[in-house]
């Protein structure tokens, strides 16, 4: 957590603490969430196994198949008044031939939040956003925020609850037989938000 002092206004600005987290395993509970929740994720490797620990080299995706979905989300804590204006997009580095990245649809209110389903390698029709091309973050999909967890009801475009969570920022890498063997390019997915 960083502390900034602004002498012009004799006030103090404290920053929110952020980390990505990931759900894995069978859908459990109501609203559904993953059986396993892992905090402090720093990468998202699309692979042929549903976990956050196995090296992607041990479970590669066979060309023509799809990865298991990645059910990641943002977690805010620390000090803030409000989190708002969330956007999510693939913002840097192009994918090669035969690769398509699908992602969560825009979340504009509680009803449009993506609901957790057990990860699988079947093409997920709920992931309607094509995230293959790197786009301007301004044209990314909208993200909502809420209390308790990404699965919980009550998501809204701004949130004062602390801690707070985004909706699920789910992605799935899909391939055709023309996908090249070996590692894909390392791409950047960005979650942009404002805090005050």
């Amino acid at each position: 957590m960083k502390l900034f002092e602004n002498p012009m206004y004799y006030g103090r600005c404290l920053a929110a603490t952020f980390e990505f987290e990931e759900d894995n395993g069978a859908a459990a509970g109501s609203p559904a969430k993953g059986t396993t929740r892992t905090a402090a994720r720093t990468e998202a490797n699309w692979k042929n196994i549903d976990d956050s620990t196995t090296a992607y080299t041990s479970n590669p995706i066979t060309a023509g198949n799809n990865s298991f979905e990645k059910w990641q989300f943002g977690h805010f804590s620390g000090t803030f008044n409000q989190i708002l204006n969330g956007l999510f997009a693939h913002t840097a580095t192009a994918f090669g031939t035969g690769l398509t990245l699908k992602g969560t649809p825009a979340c504009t209110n509680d009803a449009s939040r993506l609901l957790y389903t057990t990860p699988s390698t079947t093409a997920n029709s709920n992931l309607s956003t094509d995230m293959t091309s790197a786009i301007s973050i301004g044209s990314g999909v909208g993200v909502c925020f809420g209390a308790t967890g990404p699965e919980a009801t009550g998501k809204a475009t701004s949130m004062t609850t602390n801690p707070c969570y985004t909706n699920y920022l789910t992605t799935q890498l899909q391939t055709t037989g023309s996908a090249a063997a070996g590692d894909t390019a390392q791409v950047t997915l960005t979650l942009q938000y404002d805090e005050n």
Partner: protein
Amino acid sequence: MPEQNQNSETVNLTAADVGTVDLTPKSHPMRKMGNKDVFCAKCQAVRSMHVGLDKNNEILTVCPDCNHFYKFPLVEDPAELDKMLLDHHESNKGQITVEMAEAAQKEYDDKFKKLMGIA
């Protein structure tokens, strides 16, 4: 020698118990889709694309202009595919690629420099 009894029972199968099994291969309705109008997120335009099934029996379609492909899970009713294609269109229209954003910024900068007489 001990006495041995032999028993037997019979079951009568009448015509009403015999069904027929149709082993004629059925073609999945999605194999007859042909071409459909699909929104290409990369081209940001609707293209006529061939819709077929891949080796995993998932619906696969490829943009003839940019070769970008789209996969959808297999559905029984073509109307379900139409609904997925509509959702796909709505979710992806208006995407501004990094290249498009950079080109727009360059055009703006060029105009600004020209106005300022520093082009």
